[in-house]
């Protein structure tokens, strides 16, 4: 197969793949649930705030 034909075939494969991901949820990874968002906020915002305040109370 010529190189350009190879590229064209790959482009067609890409378009198929993009259409699948765009229109069929089974071709997507699972997105964040509200529980995931809450857990992320606890680990990434609430816990650090507690750690910072705790550190200040102990050593500040």
């Amino acid at each position, binding site marked *: 197969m010529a190189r350009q034909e190879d590229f064209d075939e790959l482009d067609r494969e890409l378009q*198929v*793949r993009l259409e699948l991901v765009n229109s069929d949820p089974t071709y997507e990874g*699972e997105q964040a649930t509200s529980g*995931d968002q809450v857990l992320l906020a606890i680990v*990434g915002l609430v816990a650090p705030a507690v*750690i*910072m305040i705790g550190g*200040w109370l102990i*050593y500040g």
Partner: protein
Amino acid sequence: MAESPTPGTTATSSASMERSAIHQAAEGSWPVLPGERNWGLLGIFGVTISAGIAAWSYSIGGAVSWYLQAGLGTFAMIAGALVGMYFVTAAAMPVSVKYGIDTIASCKPQYGSVGSAFGIIAQFASIVGWNCILLILLGRATANVLQEGGVIGSGANYTLSVIVTLATILIVYFMVIGGADSIRNNSVWIAVAVTIAGLIVLVQVIRSYGWTEIAVAEPAYASGDLHLDYTLGFEILVATVLSWWPYMGGIMRMSKSVKQALMPSMICLGMITGVIGLIGLYAGLATGDPDPSISFVKVAGLWMGAIALVFIFLANIGTAIVGVYATAIGLKQIPALQYRLTWKWTAAIVLLPVAIIGGVFPNWFMDNSLTYMYFLGLVFAPICGVQIVDYYFFRHQQIDMVSLFDYSPKGRYHFWGGFNPAGFLATAAGFFTYWYLLDPVTYLSHNTELFKWVSASIPSVIVAGITYWVLTRVIIIPSGKGGYREPVATSRGPVEAPVAK
């Protein structure tokens, strides 16, 4: 989630074409389908740990040791690492997991199909820079330990450090060219080994110097205002951990769900940067040098220096591999390189600047590396703010995948000439907010009282996000640009896959 089949296996398609398509996904710019994400939970943990544990944490902990004693420094580092990682995770992880795309592709809806080159430049410069630091540090540590142990003379120190740096670049190259599977397989054993070695080094630091001595050691550049120093220590970690942004998509697109990727991101990339940084904090306070390798040789002999070296080798090589992998995928977003550049050449392009810097002027680079990295770090805070606002508030977690790979004016993310001015203006607003609160060159604030209470990265994220929201609401959406008014899912319903299940 059901296992998704891979397109490209019709009777008319050849097996080689199918393999080629899968490689385009796993080692290229294409979205990786859930069925192709074969790293698994163990692989995701392995890759994130091997990336997250790196000896750059010595430098980070060493910087904190200038301002804070061990107690407050420990709290500030852990908290800062988690907050920085929160913004990166919220901005870049969910979209990568959902669509199987890398970080660069994920920023096209905010910066435009052409403007996303800004992300490629930031990613390339950042990861090349970090890889230089990692591999030059490894070369230097090896030479220093061998010199301290009497194995080599001082005259051979520089030459040996350069040789080790270049040899390690070759090792990284050969481990990367195996592609995604190789990254996963190598990362798992590196993760186990580096975790054990890291714990040994951390415990040995505390044993060697004694906790009492570490705890009472005074920071060298404390301002005298403990509140200010506490915020500075916190900010150093937030800003540095934001540098995980360019790594995020390359790793997390191999995860099948946000739930699977959440803890590896927050703990193995984020918190572990702070934990390993404690080695640099404690060693920096006790000896003035955040790299404990040399002092280990003095205190415990060459064998302990060798363990410290093994740790640095594994830690830095694991991170360098993941960095090269993520950057190579990012480069593949350049349409001209998408198919024409083989994976081996892409990896070589990423490593070539590292080899030039590491081989020709490593000392010059290391002398200027902190200023360089501070500038890169402050770029990622506003990017996170822009991405979070766009993905959650405007696009409601929906991206049009066809437009993501459409560079023509018809694409939804073309905006004006391929650039979204809202993304760039908001990023500039975040940049100047950071600079106003903390000059990354002088590390002085233009408003110390405000900085003490709000730090710099967090306001930078918020200001960039608000600016983006206002500009998009007032200018971009009324102009009909950006695809905000168009539905994402096609009305055709699910496309039938040309796949034999």
